[in-house]
């Protein structure tokens, strides 16, 4: 076992999957010699060559659009979008084409495409690098949306995503690349099925439902509340599509109080979907209205104000206290 950061886990998993299946091809902006701007693809070009690790021109619609043709040709494309915000440049290929390759071909073509993209606040990147747009992606039928929250599940879910016959958006929290670590087996032989939430902490009084880096924030909030004798569960959704409704309903029904923590702007963010799903499945077990702790309804702000925008431990704690105030 070795302690690995999330970015190391991703890098090693890419290497392992490329070694396992020679149909896997990694491409995108600066993924080759440079090894990716965060080093996610570091060393791959040396090991697998320029034919399988390809620097593309600077064109996101191209990166996504060629993945469709590659998949139809029998390859397993693993494109990188340098920052998730720039997937907007290729939304027509993502939503109109990648998401529908199987559908439009009435099942003829698999679309085993894994699109990796970093996103999320907390590291003071320039404009358009941090936006959490997973709610928009989850509304596109035909895409799976997977959001790891640590080194271990990044490795396991990425392996599963690459092996999945359907398109997976694999969204990596910038802030967790180097700060989140796990002790991992040296051969990294991990595959975690897509579509299962994980109860990363059990508790009884309230459950925080989170994904991606907000799981870490929720964990810290839970610890802080534990000092006051409050027992907090944390559910890591891990994938938004498919959504693990059973696990969600189970823990919410048990706790009766729930806080959803998400980075995206509140309006029409995925948090709304989580609340709606909870209400549909656990209405009678709720003792307080579910509370959303979200980004605000403003564009992701400039660096000085970032920490006020991204839900902090303090805000999540405050959210929990609000739902706990309600008398049963």
């Amino acid at each position, binding site marked *: 076992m070795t302690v690995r950061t999330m970015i190391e886990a991703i890098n090693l998993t890419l290497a392992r999957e490329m070694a396992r299946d020679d149909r896997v*091809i990694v491409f995108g902006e600066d993924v080759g010699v440079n090894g990716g701007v965060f080093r996610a693809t570091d060393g791959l070009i040396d090991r697998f060559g320029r*034919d*399988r690790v*390809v620097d*593309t*021109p600077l*064109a996101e*619609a*191209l990166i*996504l*659009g*060629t*993945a*469709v*043709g*590659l*998949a*139809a*040709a*029998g*390859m397993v*494309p693993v494109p990188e979008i340098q920052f998730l915000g720039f997937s907007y440049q290729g939304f*027509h*290929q993502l939503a*109109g*084409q990648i998401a529908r390759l*199987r*559908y*439009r*071909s*009435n*099942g*003829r073509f*698999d679309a085993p495409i894994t699109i990796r993209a970093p996103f999320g606040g907390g590291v003071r990147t320039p404009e358009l690098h941090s936006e959490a747009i997973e709610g928009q992606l989850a509304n596109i*039928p*035909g895409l*799976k949306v997977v959001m790891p929250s640590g080194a271990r599940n990044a490795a396991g879910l990425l392996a599963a995503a690459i092996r999945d*016959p*359907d398109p997976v958006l694999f969204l990596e929290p910038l802030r967790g690349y180097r700060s989140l670590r796990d002790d991992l087996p040296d051969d990294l032989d991990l595959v975690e099925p897509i*579509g299962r939430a994980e109860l990363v902490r059990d508790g009884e009084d309230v459950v925080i439902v989170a994904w991606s880096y907000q799981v870490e924030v929720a964990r810290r909030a839970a610890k802080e509340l534990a000092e006051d004798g409050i027992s907090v569960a944390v559910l890591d959704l891990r994938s938004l*599509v*498919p*959504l*693990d*409704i*059973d696990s969600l309903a189970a823990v919410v029904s048990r706790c009766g109080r729930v806080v959803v923590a998400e980075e995206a702007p509140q309006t029409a963010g995925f948090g709304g979907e989580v609340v709606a799903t909870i209400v549909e499945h656990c209405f009678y077990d709720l003792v307080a209205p579910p509370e959303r702790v979200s980004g605000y309804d403003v564009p992701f702000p400039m660096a000085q104000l970032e920490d006020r925008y991204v839900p902090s431990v303090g805000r999540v704690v405050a959210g929990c206290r609000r739902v706990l105030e309600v008398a049963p």
Partner: protein
Amino acid sequence: MLRTMIAARIYSTRCFNLQRQGRLGTMAPVDGNEAVVVGTTYALQPEHDWIFPQYREQYALGRYGDEVIRRHALYLAGHPEGSNYPAGLNVFPCQISLAAQVPHAVGMAWGLMRQGLAGVAVAFFGDGASSEGDFYEAANFAAVIKAPVVFMLVNNGWAISTPTSMQTAAVTFADKAAAFGMPGVRVDGCDPIAVWEVVTAARARAVAGEGPTLIEAVTHRLGHHTTADDPTRYIPVEQLAAARAADPVPTFAAQLRSVGLWDDELQADAEAAANAVIDDAVDQALARPLAPDAFFDHVFAQPTPRMRRQRAQLLELEAEGRS
């Protein structure tokens, strides 16, 4: 080639009329583009080479087999099986999102190249579609990696009501090739032999690893953009008349007749054969059964839990007559 062109015109006309009768959905006639599509496909090897069509070429892909028109009839009938062609038939589904198929063709060519497979990918797209970023991004990349692609830009003078003069100020569409560092060729798209020649050369270049070619095939739209369109609002009557006078199908027939390669009998036979195919295709398309919940198939290899619930709910409502 002429047989395929005649069949294309018949298929297209029949589907146009069936739309007018409310039996098929919106369609875009191939009329005027028969020579470019047929000339192209005869320069290809259907077992190796892929076609990435827009929405107008399907009637003229007879060289890839009658299955193309059978599927397309299903497509026009609004049946989900219609957008697909069975495995082994190297044609991509009908593309509505303009120019979106161009990077797909490049991806396919890239994939063939990487796997050491023979074959080229041919993307058909219009003068209008050439203004979309997708075309430019894809062509630029194809030239960098020398992907075996033929970019077949069909310039029929119009993008719905927008004339080419408002589409670009480039002197010719073939000139756009300079932006990518690839050869650009302009050809008379009403002459199937001329098209066949340039595509043959472009294909040879591509398989030799020399990279892609941009071909501008100049044609004329003989009438409606689609069945939803009224061209009299924007195309001057003289222009339409001139286009019809240059109609590639009778022109090519006359050419072959003049050298003794075509006659009334062959013509009658070609028409009869085409009519039989389309009759059968449409009858089968309209009779094809379809489950009310079929749209849940083929979204993912396995449905999500929520999709399963939704499907059950739909079937329940269906049973109650409320879906």
